[in-house]
C-alpha cells in the first residue's frame, strides 16, 4: 500500500514539475488568433473600421467586440477569408464604414503648393512621407498603402489620391469569363483593307 502511494505521489510530483516547466518554456505571449486575423487584413492602417490600425481591429475581432465586415480596403475577399478562419458566415460590408473603392490609389503631394507643415508626415501610419519642417514633402509611392489619412490634415489641400496604373510587370490578363476579348487589330485591318 505505502509503496504504491509513494510511487504515485512521486510520479504526480514529477509530471507536475514537467508540466509547469513546459508551460513556462512554451508560453504563448499573445492570443495567436489575433496574429492569424492580422495576417489576413490588408495592413492599410486606414482606420476606416473605427479602430486605430489593422492590429487593433484584429484584437477587437478576436475578443468578439467587432464584426468581421468592417474592413473597407479588404472588401469581400477579406470578409470571406475571415469567415473561413473563424468559422462564421460571411456577410456584406458594414454600412457605416464607407464605400469600397475600385482599384488601388497612391497619395501624391502637389509640390508647388506644399508649405512643409509636416502634418501629413505625422498622419502617415507607415512613414511613407519624407520631409522636414518648412521643406517640401514627398510620398514614397512604393510604401504608400493608399489609406488617405494624409489628405484631411493638409492645410493647403495639396495631397490627392491617384489611381495606380499597371505596368508591364503588374498587368493582369483579363478573365475570359468576364469579357470576350476582341482580338482584331484595327490598324492591321485598316491597312489591309
Amino acid at each position, binding site marked *: 500500500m505505502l509503496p504504491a502511494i509513494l510511487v504515485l505521489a512521486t510520479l504526480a510530483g514529477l509530471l507536475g514539475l514537467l508540466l509547469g516547466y513546459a508551460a513556462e518554456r512554451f508560453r504563448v505571449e499573445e492570443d495567436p488568433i489575433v496574429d492569424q486575423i492580422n495576417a489576413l487584413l490588408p495592413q492599410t492602417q486606414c482606420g476606416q473600421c473605427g479602430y486605430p490600425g*489593422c492590429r487593433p481591429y484584429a484584437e477587437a475581432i478576436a475578443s468578439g467586440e467587432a464584426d468581421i465586415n468592417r474592413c473597407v480596403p479588404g472588401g469581400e475577399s477579406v470578409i470571406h477569408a475571415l469567415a473561413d478562419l473563424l468559422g462564421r458566415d460571411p456577410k456584406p460590408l458594414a454600412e457605416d464604414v464607407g464605400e469600397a473603392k475600385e482599384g488601388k490609389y497612391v497619395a501624391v503631394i502637389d509640390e508647388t503648393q506644399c508649405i512643409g507643415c509636416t502634418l501629413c508626415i505625422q498622419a502617415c501610419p507607415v512613414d511613407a512621407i519624407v520631409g522636414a519642417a518648412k521643406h517640401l514633402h514627398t510620398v514614397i509611392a512604393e510604401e504608400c498603402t493608399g489609406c488617405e489619412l494624409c489628405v484631411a490634415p493638409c492645410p493647403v489641400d495639396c495631397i490627392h489620391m491617384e489611381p495606380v496604373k499597371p505596368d*508591364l510587370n503588374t498587368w493582369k*490578363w*483579363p*478573365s475570359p469569363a468576364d469579357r470576350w476579348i476582341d482580338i*482584331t*487589330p484595327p*490598324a492591321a485591318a485598316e491597312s489591309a483593307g
Partner: protein
Amino acid sequence: MSYDFSRLHRFHGGLVLEEHKRESSETPIETLPLPDLLTLPLQQHIGEPATPMVRVGETVAKGQRLARPEGYVSVPIHAPTSGKIVAIGDFPVPHPSGLKAPCIVLEPDGEDRWCEPENPIEDYTALDPSALRNRIRDAGIVGLGGAGFPSFIKMNPATGRPIDLLVVNGAECEPWITCDDRLMRERAEAVVGGIHILLHALSAAQCAIAIEDNKPEAIAAMRRAVASVGDDRMQVVEIPTLYPSGGEKQLIYVLTGREVPSQGLPADIGIVCHNPGTIAAIHDAVVHHRPLISRIVTVTGDGVKRPANVEALIGTPMVDLIEHCGGYTPGADRLIMGGPMMGYALPEDDLPVIKTTNCLLVATRRTLPLPPPPRPCIRCGECERVCPARLLPQQLYWYAHARDFDRIQDYHLFDCIECGCCAHVCPSHIPLVQYYRYAKTEIWEIERERRKAEQARQRHEARLARLEREKREREERLKKKRKAVRTDGDRRKAEIAAALERARRKKAGGEAQGAATTPKAQGDD
C-alpha cells in the same frame, strides 16, 4: 553523367500540326535598310527594366550602352546604330496588355558608326566562367526563342550542381516560324562557336543540338559545321516533329528521358538549354564584341505578300518589316507576335521589334479563323490527352473559372507551359490558355499584395515602436529636468539657509565683536 541519344523518348500528349514552314524557309535571310526611327523599350526581357544612361539630344555610337541593368535579373540595352537620342518616355510596346512602357527613341544618322568595344577579349578560353558570364550580360543577351530570360543567369546555376549537358534547342516546333531554321542553315559556324564558349563557361562535357526532322537542311548544315571543327563533345540529334517538342522540359525529356522537377529548372538535373539564336548572339558578343542589337524575325502568314526571314535592328517598327515583305495581302486580319499557338495578337503594327520578337505572323481568317464563342465544358478529357505537361486542363479551367486560386495551384498551374494544345483540341472552343494566364497573373498579384501588406505591417509596427520610444524619451527628459529643478531648488534652499545663517551669525558676532567681523564676511563671499 554522360548521355546517349541513340534512343529517344516520347513526351505525353503533343500534337502534329500543319507546319507552314515552307512559306518563309526557302529564301535567305534579308537585311532591312536603316529605319527612320528606332524605339528601344527598356524592358525587353523577364525581370526589371533597365535604367537609361543617356539624355535626350545626346549623340550615340552603334553598340553604345544606352541603359544599364537594374537589379540582378536585368540586362542592358545598346544602340542598334549611331544617331541621336530624340526622346525618352512612354511609347506603345509589343505586349499583350497594349500598355505604353518607357522607351528610348533613337534617330539614326545613317553613318552606322561603331563605338570602341569595351575591353575586348583576345582569347575567351583564358577567361574564367564568371568573366564570360559578365561579358554575356554586358552584351544584353536574353533568350531569343521568345521568353526573353536573361541568358547569363542560366550560366550561373545557383544549385551548385555541375552541368553535364548543354542542349541547343533547335526544335522550332511552332508552325510558321523559321528564323532558327534559317540561322542554323546560314550561320552554323556562329552557333558552333557559341557552343564552344558555353561548354567552356559551363564546364559541360556534352552538347546535344536537337533539331526536328522537318528541317533536313538545318540538320545537314549543323552536322557539317560540327564535323569541320571535329569536336566529339557535340552531337546533332534529329528528333521527331511533334508540337511542343521545343518546350524546354519536353525537349529534355525527348533527349534524356529525364524530367525537370515541378517548378524547377533544367539546371536542377544538370542540364542547360539555349536557343541557337541566343548561342549565335553569345558567339558574336564574345568573339566580335557585338552586343545584341539585331535579330532574325520571320515575317510570314498568308496576310503578307512575300513571307521571308529578315534581320532587323532591335527597335525597328514592325510595319517596316511588313512593307519590306511586300505589305499586307487583301484579307489580312490579325498581326500576331510569336507563332499561332503561343503568340498574341498586337493591336497595331507601329510597334518596335524587340529582343523576343521571333516571328510576325499576319493571318487571314482563312488560315486562322476567329474562335467561335465558347460552349460549356463537356469534360471529354481531350485536353488531358494532349497536355505535354501531364496536367488536368479541365480541372485547371474549372478552378480558374471559379477563381479558386488555392486549389488551382494544387493542380500545378505553374507547370503549365501555355503551349495551347488543350485549347487547340477543345471541342467546346474554350480559350483555356487565356484562363491559365489569367489565373497566373491573379496569383502573382495576390502574392505581391501579400508582400506589400507584410511590408506595411512592419513599417506600421516600426512607426508605433518609434513613437513609443520618443514618448518614453521625452518623459525621461522631463523627469530629469524636474529632478534637476528639484535638486537645484534644494541647493538654493540650502544656500539661502546658509546665507541666513551667516547673516544671523554676523548679526550675533557683530553685536559681540563689533567691526572685526566685516573682513571675514567679505571673505566668505
